[in-house]
């Protein structure tokens, strides 16, 4: 599933469009432990987190992570937005909390996997 389509399906608002909108998502990492994120995520991952911080965008850039989804309707610092724009990372915000956001993502991806057979 494409990241923009996913944002639409889970009701998240895209704040920074991202350079590569054509990425097919194959993995989601939810959490805030940077070390685990480094090990787990790759260039087809979406990072779902409640940590709206600058270094998160930095990690996304270092690890070629194409998208970040913030939760609970957080309004990120303008610096973070600028960094995401500059690096071409897609940045979206879900109005729901971490648990509910992940639940929706899981439902959408499962439905897609079933449809694909």
């Amino acid at each position, binding site marked *: 599933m494409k990241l923009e389509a996913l944002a639409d399906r889970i009701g998240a608002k895209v704040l920074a469009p991202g350079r590569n909108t054509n990425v097919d998502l*194959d993995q989601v990492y939810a959490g*805030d*432990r*940077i*070390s*685990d*994120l*480094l*090990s787990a995520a*790759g*260039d*087809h991952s979406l990072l779902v*987190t409640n*940590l709206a*911080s*600058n*270094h*998160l965008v*930095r*990690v996304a*850039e*270092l*690890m*070629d992570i194409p998208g970040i989804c913030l939760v609970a309707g957080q309004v990120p610092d303008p*610096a973070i937005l600028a960094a995401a724009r500059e690096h071409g990372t897609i940045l979206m915000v879900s109005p729901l909390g971490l648990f509910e956001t992940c639940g929706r993502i899981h439902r959408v991806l499962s439905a897609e996997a079933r449809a694909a057979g």
Partner: protein
Amino acid sequence: MNATRYEIVGGDYERGGAASRSLKEQLKKVGADPAVVRRAMIAAYEAEMNVVIHAQRGELRASLDNGQLDVEVADEGPGIADIEAALRPGFSTASAKARELGFGAGMGLPNIKKNSDRFAIDSAVGRGTTVRFTIVLRPQALYGAGRNSLHIVAEQCRQSFRCIHACPTQAMRVFRGKPQVLDYLCVDCTACIATCPSGALTTRGTRDELTPIPDAVLVVSPPVLTQFGASIRPADVLAVLAEIGFGEIWVTWAAEEALRNAIVQYAETDAAARPVISPACPAVVNLIETKFPSLIPHVAPFLSVMEALRTELDGRRAVFAATCPSQRTAVLSDDAPSKPEVVLPAALRAAVRPRLHSEDAGLPPRRAGSGPALQGSAGVPPADPNRDREGAEGVTDERVLRATGLRHVMSILNAIEDGLANDLTVVEPWACDEGCFGSPLLADDPFLARRRWTPPPDAAGPAVTRRRARPLTPRPGLRLDDDMTKAIGKLARIDKLRRALPGCDCGWCGSPTCATLAEDIVRGRAAADACVRQNPAQETTT
């Protein structure tokens, strides 16, 4: 890019990661492959953030040379009081602020170690910490097969599946009821032979029988002379061997002592890295090349005893009584000017036993003057095993730590790699228990056999050591695909498959772990539905 330096400011979380980012751009410029860049970024970012979290200031220095990336991150921080604890996953001393930001999971150093090919840490409380790591960039060459001597008798396999779990390099598979070995991973260590209950795994000599070659040198090591029980001394066995008919018999004992002394001297004078690791056991050397390439500089640059003796032959024919596959491989390696013959312990036993029991009360027949250089041993009463043993077990030098048995060898090599064994001078690791006495091809218990070894008074054999002409090189494994892009694609598929497998590493599919099965499936060695737990029907067909 030769060497580049980047400043790191402690406590500056806003800019933390800037050094890693610059490094990434450099790596992309030189066309490093994405999988390597990824590993480099994990290691560099963790190291950089360690400085931000714990120190006032620091520096990341990176250099790219000889196809490898060397990174050094040094700080003027508080230092690490307990490095061993710091290397343990989950251990952290990070501040509350760092933890709020998602750091301090205690995975920093373990993550760096996991993602680099070489890793070292140096720290002193009050002075600071330096982390060094190396990542090899070179596309991995296809490793030439045929450098091992494991022989598989497939029809003997009863599918105990023990070998796949015993192998330290995960080289064994049992697919479709037959054991197989991945040559490029096998280090010739005997672990699978020792654990196989049905004799499906063994090794073969170039000759199946010890037949006389009058002008040849027969080379034997202490363990083959102590596998005849309590009442037969090494000198008795030597006397029998002398009767069989060889020009000369060399016992490796003198060369073993000479090698040990040469290594201690090397360690005290011009060692490249300490502790120095003895290359006496060829399987351990293979293991280091395969699993611990960062320890190659620690290996003393000498040939193993049998390899050194081979250079002494001067064109004469020779029969080496090898005790294990790794000795066989070493003796027959391409460097040999002329290929000697190899016999294994079973052939030697078969030749010696009938002669031991043919005449009086289990003692060998004795005819004065019948053998070369061994006349003096006839008629000597049985030695008191507790006397005259000084030096018989080899290591009397307290600077040498002798470690035997694969499990212990692996943990000590890990400790050296982690910088936790810097108190040692020389380590002499042997893959088998009690050294070569523990080879599963021998008949007696390793401890009994070693206890029974007393150097015969007139055992002959050159006390030779030889420097290694060709340096050891890391064994890079087998490329996933010649095409780098396809290889990366396969890597991603392996990763995805692995995550879909149960992760129990039960081995019922015939592959040692779920991760190795994922690789086997992508490489086409195993069927896509090979997992027995996910596809219970498989159980009856494997």
